[in-house]
């Protein structure tokens, strides 16, 4: 069965410092992986997705993630945090093993950015 583990429930960084949000997955085949961001009282916004093309995926707002099959990881990074990056981030894997498909969500990582 597919699963997603976000290793940190809360990450706090200072403005201008790098961001690392960790995500590990389990899958019996090559999955599609996504990172979504949810700002307070807002819906989900797609940051980036991996769909078996380039392993280094660049997304919006300076975020990127690297798919590492050997480590079953898809960590999200950003070189320099902005105050506006404070939000909750979800790592998601697409599960196509059933006829209906499904999205498996991690439990989320809340990112705080200190001035």
């Amino acid at each position, binding site marked *: 069965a597919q699963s997603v583990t976000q290793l940190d429930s809360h990450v706090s960084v200072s403005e201008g410092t790098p961001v690392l949000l960790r995500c590990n997955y389990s899958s019996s085949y090559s999955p*599609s992986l*996504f990172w*979504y961001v949810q700002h307070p*009282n*807002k*819906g*989900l916004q*797609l940051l980036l*997705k991996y*769909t078996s093309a380039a392993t280094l995926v660049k997304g919006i707002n300076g975020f990127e993630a690297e798919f590492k099959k050997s480590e079953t990881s898809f960590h999200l990074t950003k070189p320099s945090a902005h105050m506006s990056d404070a939000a909750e981030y*979800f790592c*998601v894997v*697409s*599960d*196509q093993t059933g*006829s*209906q*498909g*499904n*999205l498996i*969500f*991690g*439990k*989320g990582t809340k990112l705080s950015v200190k001035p």
Partner: protein
Amino acid sequence: SQTIHQWPATLVQPVGSPLSLECTVEGTSNPNLYWYRQAAGRGLQLLFYSVGIGQISSEVPQNLSASRPQDRQFILSSKKLLLSDSGFYLCARLGQGGTEAFFGQGTRLTVV
């Protein structure tokens, strides 16, 4: 374009009252549709999915039900809300072999 409309955006309901959240999809036919819930401090949990009109599958036992009266309409309901039904509800669909995911804006439900 493929768009998911979900309403209302926020809702405050008393315990014991009924609930109806609606989700409609544009730009595609016969989509697989999903209802997720995010309870406070927890991740998103799949509640229901539907592969077609009148076809509903439930992932967890609960106080809620879902219906698919039309191809592009997916409704989440409850006859009597509980405090534990509070949370953020999200309608979604998968596209193109699972390589795309589309979400509504979500409904934040507070049961008081």
